[in-house]
């Protein structure tokens, strides 16, 4: 029945043309149409189907996906940055702590620190730094453990209810006598001390006097009493007076250099004070032109 046509069969269009009468009869058949009820049912169903499924915009899914990815990446980046900052802070704290240890070890002078009272009086930030250094920086902590502890290093002669008595830093601390190299450094420190106290701050004033036995120096210098993080006012004033005498023992050239250092550090007020002090000490000395404008 469905055998293919023989190869010599004529074209189908020609065959249909031959059957034009048949086709005409077919066209003459009643042109039946679906009933109205069918039209209503089908069109109604099509409309309901469209209303039920309101199409979402095609861009919605890609845009939402991209926004989610960007948000996730942003959160991840922020977390990463926070971790990095935390690590950096931890490492810095450990480094500071290590520097403190090294400084304390390097000094052969006796400094009295009340290590027992220190954590109670130290600011919370320093405590946190110490804890962070002890916990988060394992290598640094291990290195610290190998060293003598603070209490072992420090022989504190004066323990007085949490009051720490720190001896001044003298020229004997340094290899070259007669000239304290830290005098150049303490531009940020009016006391001119390179030492670091137990909290990481600067230690009390040092002496620039000629080399002398430590005991004699100790008698000359006033004690600076430190309670926690505060320095007593009278001792501070005394330290400042010491500073004046310290400058007076400088050579004029060194003193002028020191004033220039203050100027370059933009500490104009202190520079003026020093110029005034210089004037008092060397009234006949001619000030260099660059310092004259600081002369009151």
């Amino acid at each position, binding site marked *: *029945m469905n055998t293919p046509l023989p190869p010599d069969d004529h074209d*189908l269009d020609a*065959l249909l043309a031959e*059957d034009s009468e*048949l086709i005409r009869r077919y066209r003459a*058949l009643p042109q039946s149409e679906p009933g109205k009820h069918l039209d209503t049912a089908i*069109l109604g169903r099509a409309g309901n189907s*469209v*209303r039920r499924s*309101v199409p979402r915009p095609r861009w919605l899914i890609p845009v939402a996906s991209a926004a989610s990815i960007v948000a996730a990446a942003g959160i991840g980046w922020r977390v990463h940055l926070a971790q990095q900052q935390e690590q950096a802070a931890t490492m810095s704290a450990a480094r500071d702590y290590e520097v403190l240890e090294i400084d304390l070890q390097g000094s052969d002078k006796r400094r009295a620190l009340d290590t027992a009272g220190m954590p109670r009086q130290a600011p919370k930030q320093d405590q946190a730094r110490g804890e962070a250094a002890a916990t988060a920086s394992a290598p640094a902590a291990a290195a610290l453990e190998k060293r003598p502890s603070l209490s072992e290093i420090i022989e504190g002669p004066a323990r007085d209810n949490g009051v720490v008595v720190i001896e001044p830093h003298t020229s004997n601390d340094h290899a070259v006598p007669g000239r304290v190299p830290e005098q150049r450094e303490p531009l940020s420190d009016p006391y001119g001390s390179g030492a670091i106290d137990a909290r990481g701050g600067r230690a009390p004033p040092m002496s620039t006097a000629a080399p002398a036995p430590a005991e004699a120096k100790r008698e000359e210098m006033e004690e600076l009493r430190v309670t926690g993080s505060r320095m007593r006012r009278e001792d501070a004033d005394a330290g400042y007076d010491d500073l004046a005498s310290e400058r007076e023992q400088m050579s004029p050239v060194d003193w002028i250099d020191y004033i220039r250092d203050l100027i370059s550090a933009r500490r104009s007020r202190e520079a003026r004070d020093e110029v005034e002090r210089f004037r008092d000490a060397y009234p006949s000395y001619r000030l260099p032109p660059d310092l004259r404008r600081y002369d009151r």
Partner: protein
Amino acid sequence: MLAYAGGEARAFETLYTRHRGTVYRFLLRSVTRRELADELFQDTWSRVITARDRYRPDAKFTTWLLQIAHNLLIDGFRRARPEDGGEHAELALQQAENDEDDRPERVLGEFEQSRQLQTALARLPEDQRSAFLLRVENGLSVEEIAEVTHVGRETAKSRLRYALEKLREALG
């Protein structure tokens, strides 16, 4: 169809208006019973509505639509065996309105010829009748007939040729 898939209900109305008559007549002249044709017609369009999201414009919409109708028709034939012998076709023809010329002799002659054609169509094998209807009623090419009926081109052409020969014989 793509517009309807995009949510435009009026696009469906346009499609439906364009194809409702040819699809309905293809089904009605294939099964001859109006109620069955109505059912198949409704099923055909229901499938179009349901499958609108899956529609891909790889083929003409007409071909896709008639493919759905033909598949439903084949399923209907399988359920409705044995086939009727043309009695329903004759009944449907008698029920149909005739808009032809209203002269009694002519009306009688035309009616007789239509009845004979309708009966001959009903007696054709399913595949040959489908090929004939798809060609004459729906205007499909042999290739499109082959696509709708899922056969090769030569098979579709053979079916069409046999259908034409049998109808010519039946009509004398």
